[in-house]
């Protein structure tokens, strides 16, 4: 089932949680709502579920206006951040709950409920925990039970609020791969909320970056990572070096160094922010012809792992540049702390400073 979100606004008192948000989620996709805490992503998810009502705007499920529909009639599955498992019920009863509360006419028989619950518990690979109570489970197990419970009512849409937020790093990685595989199996339209860019980029088909109640960018993980559409997205997705610069006719002036960029050819002397990813910083021991390079001093070397992280201090300013080199390249250069180097920004992206 597809979801269309139209011009949603939501205020809490004087705080604007969502400001004119529109979004299309095609059927069968796995979408991540990504943003810092307090950006409105959870509010948006709860509005889709019907747990909050928007001040204005509408939600359509498969083209039908569902804004006024009650939560229980929306056919959504919701996985809560802290799972919200029913403490006093066994795992089995938790998963069976959605079936048991149906009106008599549509309620499956006990045998059918039993069969379905065990099927779901097998799907989440926790059939052996059926008689346990939620407090007796680990975090990862609770998460999977919460998912099984949400799936039991055969929802048309699956909504997950920070599904891995409360888990430790190792379980987190395992579970997100598992969620991806599960989605590929079931193909149910799914939206999950996260503040972890790595999680969003790894799991989702599409990433929706949200900031301060507005959508900043929508795109595939590749798109949003490689072509961020705003300074916020650039900073939020991965490490980035940020430079104050001036743009003049297709050239970005950073300090005394002019870097050609393939944009803003018409712009005349305008303040801008320039962004370069650490792995797009090249380091040399000598000047490279007419390549525009910064002079810098190696101030710190972190050489554990496959990538070597360098902290470089620009000669013309107090600013630090972060660079990532492969171990091979690092050994080739044979850098030591305090060494004088030349730095070339390979891939510069600039955003005009509209306030200036």
């Amino acid at each position, binding site marked *: 089932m597809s979801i269309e979100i139209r011009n949603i606004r939501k205020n809490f008192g004087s705080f604007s949680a969502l400001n004119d948000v529109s979004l299309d989620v095609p059927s069968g996709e796995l979408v991540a709502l990504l943003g810092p805490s307090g950006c409105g992503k959870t509010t948006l998810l709860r509005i889709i579920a019907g747990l909050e009502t928007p001040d204005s705007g509408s939600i359509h499920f498969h083209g039908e206006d569902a804004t006024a529909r009650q939560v229980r009639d929306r056919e959504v599955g919701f996985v809560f951040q802290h799972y919200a498992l029913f403490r006093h019920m066994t795992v089995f009863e938790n998963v069976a709950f959605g079936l048991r509360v149906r009106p008599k006419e549509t309620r499956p028989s006990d045998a059918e409920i039993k069969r379905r619950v065990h099927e779901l518990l097998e799907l989440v690979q926790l059939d052996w925990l059926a008689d346990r109570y939620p407090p007796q489970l680990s975090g990862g197990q609770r998460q999977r039970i919460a998912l099984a419970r949400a799936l*039991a009512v055969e929802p048309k849409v699956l909504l997950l609020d920070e599904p891995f937020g409360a888990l430790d790093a190792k379980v987190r990685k395992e579970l997100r791969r598992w969620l991806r595989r599960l989605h590929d199996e079931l193909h149910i339209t799914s939206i999950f909320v996260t503040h972890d860019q790595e999680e969003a980029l790894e799991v989702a088909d599409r990433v929706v970056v949200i900031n301060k109640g507005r959508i900043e960018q929508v795109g595939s993980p590749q798109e949003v990572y490689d072509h961020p559409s705003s300074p916020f997205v650039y900073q939020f997705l991965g490490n980035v070096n940020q430079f104050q610069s001036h743009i003049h006719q297709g050239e970005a002036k950073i300090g005394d160094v002019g870097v050609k960029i393939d944009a803003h050819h018409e712009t005349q002397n305008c303040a801008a922010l320039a962004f370069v990813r650490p792995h797009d910083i090249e380091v040399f021991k000598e000047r490279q012809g007419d390549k525009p390079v910064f002079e810098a001093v190696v101030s710190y070397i972190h050489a554990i792992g496959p990538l070597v992280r360098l902290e470089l201090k620009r000669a013309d300013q107090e600013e630090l540049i972060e660079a990532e080199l492969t171990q091979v390249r690092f050994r080739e250069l044979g850098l030591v702390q305090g060494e004088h180097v030349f730095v070339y920004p390979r891939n510069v992206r600039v955003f005009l400073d509209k306030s200036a």
Partner: protein
Amino acid sequence: MSSAPISQHSSYHKKVARSRATSEPIWIRWLLIGITLMFLSLFLLVPLAAVFTEALRKGFDTYITALSDPDALSSIKLTLIAAAIAVPLNLVFGVAAAWAIAKFEFRGKSILITLIDLPFAVSPVIAGLIYVLIFGMQGWVGSTLIDHDLKVIFAIPGIVLATVFVTFPFVARELIPLMQAQGKDEEEAGLVLGASGWQILWRITLPNVKWGLLYGVILTNARAMGEFGAVSVVSGHIRGMTNTMPLHVEILYNEYNYAAAFAVASLLALLALVTLALKSFIEWNVERNAQQHEQSFN
């Protein structure tokens, strides 16, 4: 203004190993324990023991005779009736109030909580008085009621009303902090899974607060059966008609029939002991559950 809510009790008996630096010399410890036990004996144990001793002073036969007296039996019956009406009424109220206060935000909430506490602050005598003012002979609606041959004051309805008033906050006071602490995630989960409001209440909310609920009911019941001042004002002390057990105790005592007075009193004291035992049992249960939670988190 009653005991602290059950959620606070759950941390009792936590065993803390104390180093020498943060403990007192042994003689001070035993001195403090000794003074405490002395104080509690003088004020709690001795009076409690006195009730049973006095009740049995004239032998077991007198004791049984005193309890099987028709007036005594009718006072027991009336006490049970009053509690059987007051407890469910305040139970329903407590659940409704806790649902509104714990699960929703609205203006004036803290005022409402204070108002629910009001009956704790009111002297039982005044609790009786206000019903006399309304339903008594010269009261607001008293004369209308008499025209229809309905008696509230000096009759059972008055006793029930006074009992409801003095036990009004107990259940609500237990449930509100408990339900606030539990949040509304589980209820929302139930809603998304298709449960109706009543299904959520019966299958999710109430099972989650069952111990707090029981705790509140036990306190309500103990107070309902034991209330004296408020009931005394509205009852009119009509023997065999409007006497509850505590009032019957007073009448017998004022007639210098001490053995019989203490015999009826001993039943009420037993009720108190059962109440304390149940209360401890619930606290023990809650504490055990809390420990299980903690263990599984570690």
